[in-house]
Structure formats: C-alpha cells, structure tokens
C-alpha cells in the first residue's frame, strides 16, 4: 500500500505516541484545562501524521521535493480550526472560572 523510509517511520511512531498520550490525557483528566491541552496534543499528533503522509509517494530517500501539497493545505486549514477552537475553549474556561464562585445549582442531572 504505502511505503515509508525508516526515518519517516520514526516520525510516524512519534505521531502515534502523541495521539495516544492525548487520548489518555483526555479520558483521564477531569479538569477542563487538562482536557484542552490533551486535545491540542492529539491534534499535534494528527497534523504530524499528515505532514509525514505528505511524503508517502516520494522515493526512499527523497525528502524535500515531491511532497503532497494537498495535505499541507489541509494541515494549514486544520491548524486554523484547531487554534480557533482552543481559543474559544479557553475563553469559555475563563468565564467558567469567573462564575464558579457564585454559581447557582446545577440544572438537572
């Protein structure tokens, strides 16, 4: 299917590790901030995977010239989305922090 050089395999493994760490952090951490960070780690892993995959069609040692531009474009789009989502989440978190002091009862289960 897709062939990778050994150096790329290292990147792949790193990306996978990042995703794994992120997922672990997301599932375990109850605090919202921790989860936001975990989400960012996952997206870093996915973007890394995308960047690595961009080289998949290139030969064993060609690294620079024949990368897939579509994936790069996608990574850029993804980054924009991820950054705005993170910003939004942080803003919400900040508002939550401001209001926890006198927060009324929870509405329902």
């Amino acid at each position, binding site marked *: *299917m*897709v062939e990778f050089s050994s150096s790329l395999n290292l990147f792949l493994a790193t990306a996978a590790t990042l*995703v794994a760490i992120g997922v672990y952090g*997301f599932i375990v951490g109850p605090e*919202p901030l921790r*989860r*936001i960070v975990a*989400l960012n780690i*996952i*997206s870093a892993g*996915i973007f890394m*995977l*995308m960047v690595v*995959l961009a080289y*998949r*069609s290139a030969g064993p040692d060609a690294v620079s010239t024949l990368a*897939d531009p*579509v*994936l790069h474009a*996608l990574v850029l*789009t*993804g980054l924009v*989305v991820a950054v*705005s*989502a993170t910003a*939004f*989440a942080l803003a*919400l*978190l900040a*508002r*939550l922090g401001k*209001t926890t002091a006198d*927060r*009324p009862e*929870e*509405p*329902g*289960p």
Partner: protein
Amino acid sequence: MMILLLVLPLAAALLMLLWPRIAPLLALFSAAVCSFLALQLLLQVSEQGTRYWLLAGWPSGLAIAWQADTLSCLLILLTAVLQLLVGFYAFATRARDKLSQGFWPLSSLLQLSLTALWLSRDLFNLYVCLELLALVAVALVSLSGRKAIKPALNYLLLSLFGSLCYLLGVVLLYGAYGRLDIAGLVSQWQPNLLTNSALLLMSLGLMLKAALWPLHGWLPAAHAAAPAPVSALLSALVVKGPLFILCLLWLQLASTEQAQAMAPLFAGAGLAALLFGGWSALRTPFAKNLVAYSTVAQLGYATLALGLMLKFDQPLIFAALWLFVLAHALAKAACFLAIGEMSGTLGGKRLTTLKGASQTMPLAMFAFAVAGGSLIGLPPSGGFLAKWALLQGLWLQEQQLFWPLALVLATLLSAAYVFRVVVLAFDRADPVAPDFSPQVLPQWLALLPALAVWAMALFSEPLLLLLRLEAL
C-alpha cells in the same frame, strides 16, 4: 443557486456584526430568502436530477466536491424553514427572554455550516463544516449565561474530541487513497484493516457528536441549558449533521461486508437509545431535560433505521430513516419552543410547573401535545409516516418479528413520556398561575412546526417516493 444558499447566510452574519441594530431583520430576511431558494432548488433537483459542482473548476479529485440531491435539498429546506420559524420566535420573545444580540449572527452561521454540510461530498470539507457547526452550537449554548457555561464547555471538549477522531480517520483514508471526495473513494474502496479502522474512528467521532447512544451523555445538559430557540435549533438540526455524514460513510463508502458487520451494532445502539432515552425522559423531574432525553431516544430511531438499512438494504428503510429525521426536527422544535414558552411564563424548570397548563396556556400545551403525537407516531403525522415506512420495510423481510416488537415497545415508551406531560397539564387541582399574562404570538409560533409535521401527511406520497429513489 447552491452558491447563493451558502453566501447569503455568511453575508448576513457579517453584516450583522457591522450593523447589530438590524441584526434580527437581516437574519429573518436571509432565512426567508434561503427557504425560497431551497424550495426552488428542491423542485429543480427533483425534476432534473442530482446536480454536481466542483469548487473553482479544479479537476475532480483535487477540487472540493459538492452535490445537491433530493435529500440534501430537503434538508436544506428544512434548515432554512426552521431557522425562519425559530428566528420569528426569538424575535417575538427577545425582550422578555433577554436574548443576547449574539444569537442572530450565530444562527446565520449555523445555517451556513449546516447548508454546507448537507451539500458537500468531500471528507475534509465535511470536517471543516462539522467543526464550524460545533463551535457555533457551543457559542449558542453559552448565550444563556452563567449556568450554561459548564455544559457548554463540556459539549465543546467532547465535540472537539469527536472531530479529531473523525479527522484522524480522514487522514488515514487520504494516506491510503490520496483523495477526499466520496465518489472517488468509492471507486477505489477496498475492505481492509486500514479502511476498517478509518471507518470506525470516524464513526466514533460522529456518534459522539450526534449524541448517539452510548455517547449521548453531554446532550441533555447542553440542550437543557440553552435558551429555548437555541435548544430548538440544536435538537432539531445540529445533531442531524453528524448523522448525515455517518450515513454517507456507511451507506456509500463502506463495502457490503463492512456494512453487514456494523449493522447489528447500529441497530442495537439505536434500540438501546430508544429504551434508555425513553426511560430517562420518564424519570427526569425537569421539563427541558425530558425533551432533551426524548431527542436521545428519537435519534435512536434514526440509528436503528441506519442499522436495519445496512442489514437489509431496503430502500423503504432508508426513506424511514430520513422521514424520522425530518419529522423529529419539526416536532422537536415545536416541543422546545412550547416548553420554553411555558416554563418562561409559568416560571420554573420543573415538570410540576406545567400543572394545569391546559387551562393557563392551552395553545402552548396544545403545540406540545401535537408535536408529541408525531414523536409517538400517531397517524397521520410525519412520525407515523416514518414508522409506517420502517414497518413496511421490515415486513417485506421474511421472519422479522423481533424488530417490529422492539418498535412497539419503544413507541409505548415515547407515548408514556409525552403523556406524562399532557396528563400533568390536565391536573386541575391547583394549577400554577402564570407570572404574567401569556403572550399569544410565541405560542402560535411554537404551534406552527407542530402543525407542519402533521401536514407532512399531505406530501407523504411524493416524500416517500423521492426518498426511496435516493437510496438506490
């Protein structure tokens, strides 16, 4: 026309930011024009067949693929019309409910992202739409102030996690096949470990976003916390977006073996959602939570239909799936508006506030009951059409007694929670007095979608035929 449908809400949203004073007018205007355009597009497509469009003239495979088939057009029409209705409701109650100005641009953006989602047939573009949809939806939930921040944040985080799962799946597929358009992927699709895991990852993310059982945990809190018009939009439309993509994935991309393997899981999850959601709706002491749990349950119908469709490959079941979605969207919008109206006027979130509402607010209660009739599936409402199509599809298969029985049970549960409210409304012992005299116009606006879902009976035959053709 497709471009206009996308550009108009976007332009309206931008103009609203520049000129907030006329924001409501702009939102209503754009929703009205979009409804009209969507109707035109639907008529055109149903006459001349599906229309394809590649963005900016790039060759297929590189360009973002768009496609307007009858189903997409129906959903666009539904989105625009509901936006219009809910917009009117929000406009009529804006002073009383202290609705934030932010509602108007956000609702236009919601319409934009949904329209784009119904039209696009490109996995990455779908991801962008999903993400935009989620952000807008969360922003809308957070409009209701302090108490909504926590559910909103929870919703956002889970939704982002879901998007990332979906994105990972998309990346895997792109890595293998080098394309993102669904039509292109179908032609090269092979069932193997990679596509299996990509499909599963994407489904996981989408199920989380669509609040399908067992990943529905965030939905009741988020939908109950939002202001009434927002809850209506969220329950009616937003959760249907991921569901739509899920259907695209499994019905178009997945190979027969993959579909067959997944079918029992979806059907089982749907049934579980129906039972669990119905049961929770019966237990909860809060009015809006009841409606939100009913959304979980009703999404179960859609999941169940998807599972059965994968199993039997019967066009009628496909029609049932989307009839459920259409009927539920209209009915749920009416439910949330009616409940919002009643708890707003009677002053309280608990179900017991609705005691005697058939006297104090007959119109809103009637709207709830009428919409509830469709949720139960009483003839000749939209919910009945869906159930009828599903039953017909099932009876056409030999030896299928289990699923009709399960449907009967689920329907009884939904009847139980709908009439839990209605019976309470007929309690004459000591009715809760309204805090102020009830407004008539918002109650009528709540009634409109409820009547619309019953009016689906008038178009039942063409609807069934169109949707059945779409499945082939």
